[in-house]
């Protein structure tokens, strides 16, 4: 029992920060992409706006996936 929990503890030490970093980077991509796309659109740089919008979209998909995984974890425990 203690061995199992020690293994879970060790996994937690690297997995939890990794999950958190993925969530934060994903939302960071949304914020970054949206802000840069807005600036590029105002300056008339269509290609740059599209590229940054793409970055925001990828971040959005990653973030949404993380939220869905969180909801699955919540509903499947017990």
């Amino acid at each position, binding site marked *: 029992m203690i061995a199992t929990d020690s293994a879970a503890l060790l996994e937690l030490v690297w997995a939890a920060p990794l*999950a958190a970093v993925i969530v934060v980077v994903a939302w960071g991509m949304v914020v970054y992409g949206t802000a840069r796309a807005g600036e590029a659109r105002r300056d008339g740089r269509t290609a740059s706006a599209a590229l940054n919008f793409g970055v925001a979209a990828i971040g959005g998909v990653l973030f949404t996936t993380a939220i869905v995984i969180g909801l699955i974890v*919540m509903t499947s425990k017990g």
Partner: protein
Amino acid sequence: MDSDIILVIVVATALAFDFTNGFHDTANAVATSISTRALAPKTAVGLSAILNFVGAFISIKVAATVAGGIVDADQITTTVIFAGLIGAITWNLVTWYFGLPSSSSHALIGGVVGAAFAATGPDAIFGGALLEKVIVPALVAPVVAFVTAGACILITYRLVGRLRPGSVNRGYRLGQIVSASLLSLSHGTNDAQKTMGIITLALIAHGSLSGPSPDPPTWVIVSAATAIAAGTYIGGWRIIRTMGSKIYKMDPAQGFAAQGGGAAVLLTASHLGFPLSTTHSITGAVLGAGAAKRLSAVRWGLAGNIAVAWALTLPAAAAVGAITYGVSRIFGTGALGPLLICVCLLALMAAMFGKRLRHGPPVATAAADT
């Protein structure tokens, strides 16, 4: 007749604990969102209350025992549960009074451990399990969350540091609404279950429910969900203020790093079967997000007080639980002891709330102003 009265008292006390659990832990989900103005205070607690209510219905797989594996299940009687609940409620009220975030789950475990100790002695407590399930996670949670949130905010500043603050702040405020919602839902799922478990146990002990692991009746689920949602809506504003603005003045990116990073740590831990305290994780994350930006920005004295409250949670709740059990037994095994203790607790609550209402402006206003 006496057993019916004791059952009613235990159910009412369990719902009272659920209520204090809600208002005590509101800060975990909404403090950073209120502090960074991602949400207006009333909107934040309203949203959190609704999601806590919904969360209570997501999973109803209640624990078979209170403090399962830590206390010998055969020694848990309705009086032990009652005394444990009083220990937990008292500690929740004391820490709320001083505006300190602390774990309601640890308070409940402490209360039950103390009451079981008073009832049957040290043999009822499994020390190894207590160390493994409570003490080690209590040490791990804030450290992992601190380091994680610190790393998250450094990455965040690296990503968006050169952008216009206006759009960045708007973006992170929006992210905070999502992370606050997820935390609220998670809290409802976790913590309302404990109350359902306690009431289900009391119903089994009373003979109203039978079977090896019966599902809680609908009225138990609805009442537990309502109590935690009502507590959340009332809001533990003193603790919200401590976590949201007293430790340091956070920006929206820090708020998101603390809340989003903290939520990711909590759910990963839960997935790995290593559940951590929400309070310990989010407080650790708040400190980490502040310290990574500037070490001196964090009020370490206040952080020290919070750490002391965490260290005292288990022994203090255990002591109150043991004393409650002892006092209750002075009046025999009937309902008189628990009834008198309930009256005393209600008087204590009225005095504490009364004193807080008389002194100082509503913290809700102060939180909104920060």
